[in-house]
């Protein structure tokens, strides 16, 4: 449900993927015999040429299996290759995907899914309840290398009633339960008896999604072809090309030569480099809040940050607005808590922490931090107030934010040092081992506000997501209750209380939510901005015949 996010635009995440991104399931080898395809498709094969959509991202997917897709690139492609039983629609409401309907019974303890009858895997085999059961077994198998098992721990049993009906029973009411079935379903007939770690399907996927796998050139690009038998209708895009361009500057140059159709801009590119006649004519720019927030996490086991007054003083000493203005060029907003602004769980009435260095100094003095030796730095028991802030390399916005924060903390007498580490090293050596004082990172959130994994006191073991070591019986209770209650209004009340509690306790210094700044080439029709972003209906974008760019290559 949540992902660690390393960079701003198209981000490598770690671990849990946003639910929105976890959709589909399978894939297919390089070329299918035409006969199979024809047999598989409810829609007759159409030879009319469709244009390609060339997308760029900063990282290469690691595996194309939804159970193991823990960073954004994998999750993004898995969404096109696989489907879950349910998905979020453009307005972020749960709707059927592989399931055409479902019943929630016994106060949420039982969900019965009625599966579609017209779904076939990219290799022509029919999709059935056996695939759902197989996927569930893999998710809860302790041997499986999946970070998503936690969402299914509360399932007591899953029964296949017939080929197209599945009954899921929960041990206790579990509100995120329905949404968790957005997990991509994987094909039993191809994966049974195989080790997910070594299966060739991880690099030659076969799913049920709108696109089927065509080729993978390591380090460079992945090509997907439209799957005409897709149960959601024949895709309007003939081929989806994912290009790996790790440097946003390079991606921007590729935009200038129209070799990329769809990517995310940096704030600087959006604000200063795209106001040209060419760009206006060629690309449509979009802007909406992204689904994640940046924060400073304090190691609460460090004596420095165990005192809440110190954490609050740090919040008062920095100026979040200035960071949004300078680092995001104003393209984002200040965040006050652990949910996404604009969602029902987020309490908009909660005031932003003001920038008040005077009060910060007073609070620090109350906590025993004074500049007794007059050297400009606070000290206590002869020790200077100094700590190291870790962040990851390759994210300019985080580096700049860190430097601004460093400056502000210096004004109140706190000596913050910055250390920038490679993403993998930061996670493996410092976060997982909890060897840090403070860290500047971001969470990508799912659409369900369940933040149990991030703040619950039972999730503090090495490698788990509550790496700051936050322990609050009251917050624990609210998070557990929020999972048990189904009514959205009632849940909103619980999560708003939790929001206030976390803003008060400040285990994190919540910083900002950056805007997502995607661009799409103007020749595409049907791009529809919505709460879910603009990619939600990507497969149905179309290009009128006169404006196609890649039509010749497609002619075959």
């Amino acid at each position: 449900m949540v992902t660690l996010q390393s960079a701003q635009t198209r981000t490598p995440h770690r671990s849990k993927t946003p639910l929105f991104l976890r959709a589909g399931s399978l894939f297919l080898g390089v070329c299918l015999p035409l006969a199979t395809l024809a047999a598989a498709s409810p829609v007759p094969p159409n030879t009319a040429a469709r244009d390609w959509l060339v997308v760029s991202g900063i990282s290469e997917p690691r595996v194309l299996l939804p159970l193991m897709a823990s960073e954004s690139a994998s999750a993004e492609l898995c969404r096109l290759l696989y489907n879950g039983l349910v998905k979020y629609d453009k307005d972020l409401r749960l709707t059927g995907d592989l399931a055409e309907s479902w019943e929630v019974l016994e106060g949420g303890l039982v969900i019965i899914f009625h599966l579609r009858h017209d779904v076939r895997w990219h290799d022509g085999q029919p999709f059935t309840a056996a695939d759902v059961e197989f996927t569930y077994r893999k998710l809860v198998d302790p041997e499986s290398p999946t970070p998503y098992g936690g969402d299914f721990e509360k399932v007591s049993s899953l029964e296949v009633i017939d080929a197209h009906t599945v009954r899921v029973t929960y041990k206790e009411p579990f509100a995120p339960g329905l949404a968790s079935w957005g997990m991509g379903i994987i094909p039993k007939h191809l994966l049974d008896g195989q080790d997910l770690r070594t299966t060739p399907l991880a690099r030659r996927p076969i799913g049920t999604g709108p696109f089927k796998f065509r080729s993978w050139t390591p380090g460079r690009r992945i090509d997907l072809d439209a799957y005409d038998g897709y149960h959601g209708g024949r895709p309007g895009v003939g081929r989806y090309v994912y290009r790996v361009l790790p440097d946003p500057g390079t991606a921007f140059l590729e935009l200038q030569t129209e070799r990329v159709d769809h990517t995310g801009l940096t704030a600087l590119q959006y604000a200063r480099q795209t106001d040209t006649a060419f760009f206006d004519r060629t690309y449509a720019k979009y802007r909406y809040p992204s689904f994640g927030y940046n924060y400073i996490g304090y190691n609460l086991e460090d004596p420095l940050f165990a005192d809440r007054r110190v954490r609050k003083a740090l919040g008062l000493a920095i100026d979040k607005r200035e960071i949004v203005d300078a680092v995001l060029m104003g393209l984002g907003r200040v965040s006050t808590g652990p949910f996404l602004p604009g969602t029902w769980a987020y309490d908009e009435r909660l005031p932003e922490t003001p920038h008040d260095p005077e009060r910060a100094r007073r609070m620090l003095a109350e906590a025993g931090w004074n500049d007794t030796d007059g050297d400009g730095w606070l000290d206590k028991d002869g020790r200077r107030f100094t700590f190291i802030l870790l962040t990851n390399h390759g994210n300019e916005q985080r580096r700049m934010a860190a430097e601004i924060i460093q400056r502000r903390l210096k004004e109140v007498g706190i000596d913050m040092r910055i250390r920038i580490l490679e993403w993998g090293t930061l996670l493996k050596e410092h976060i997982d081992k909890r060897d840090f004082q403070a860290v500047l990172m971001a969470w990508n959130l799912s659409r369900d506000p369940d933040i149990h994994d991030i703040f619950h006191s039972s999730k503090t073991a090495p490698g788990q997501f509550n790496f700051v070591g936050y322990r609050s019986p009251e917050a624990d209770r609210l998070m557990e209750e929020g999972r048990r209650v189904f009514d959205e209004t009632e849940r909103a009340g619980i999560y708003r209380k939790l929001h206030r509690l976390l803003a008060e306790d400040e285990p994190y210094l919540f910083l900002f939510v950056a805007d997502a700044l995607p661009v799409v080439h103007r020749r595409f029709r049907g791009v529809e901005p919505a709460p879910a972003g603009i990619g939600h209906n990507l497969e149905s974008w179309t290009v009128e015949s006169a404006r196609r760019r890649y039509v010749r290559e497609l002619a075959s």
Partner: protein
Amino acid sequence: MRGAVAWLIGVVLAAIVAPLGLGEVAQRIDLQAALLPPGPGHWLGTDGLGRDLLARLLVGTTASLGVAVLSTAVATIVGVLIGATAGLAGGRVERALLGLIDLTLCFPAFFLILAVVAMLGPGLTQIAVIIGLVGWTQTARLVRAEILSLKERDFVAAARVLGAGWWRICRVHLLPNASGPVIVSAVLGLSSALLVEGGLSFLGIGVQPPVPSWGNLLMDGRSCLGVAWWMTLFPGLMIFLTVLSANVVAERISEPSSIAPEGRR
């Protein structure tokens, strides 16, 4: 040549003086003045946080040059010790040391540095020492070759006949006469260390913010190449001119006329 020497002297002066006078200016964040092009007030423009680029370049000299000088010193000391030992000792010791030189040469230095930084974490001193510890081989080979030829000379034989020990001969006769090539290789090493520091900082694993160095200033500029050309051009120019000057000076020293082959006896 004069220009090169003048430039190097200027750079060294900047490295010593700039942090004293400009340290505060180089760190002053002024978000209203972000990304200003070169002009009055900010002669070389400002960066994304409104800091004066000229001040940062001058202050950055300290880190860049510091790393270069320290690593060259390490490389030269290690190189002279190993080269002289190999040249004088001969036999098995020499073969072992030559093996060590070949072994070190076989290592792709940059990746060795990357690996060590990954283990120890970034930091000026460790980077300088590592650059030095992988860069001594050229000096060692030169010193050994010089000593092999010098130790057969008559003045060395004369010194031995007079009863001088190897330590004294080495100190008074051999090393001073071998110093020409050592100086040249040190100056060349200086420029390559400067480039390695630039590369490491460019990759973000060199000097940590907010301390500027030429390499990380260059890196900062990369993300706004289309908006702020000055952030890339000037740090690049600093590195280029300094490396060029060092090479010109090294070339000059190595010319036969500049140092008498058997200058001191």
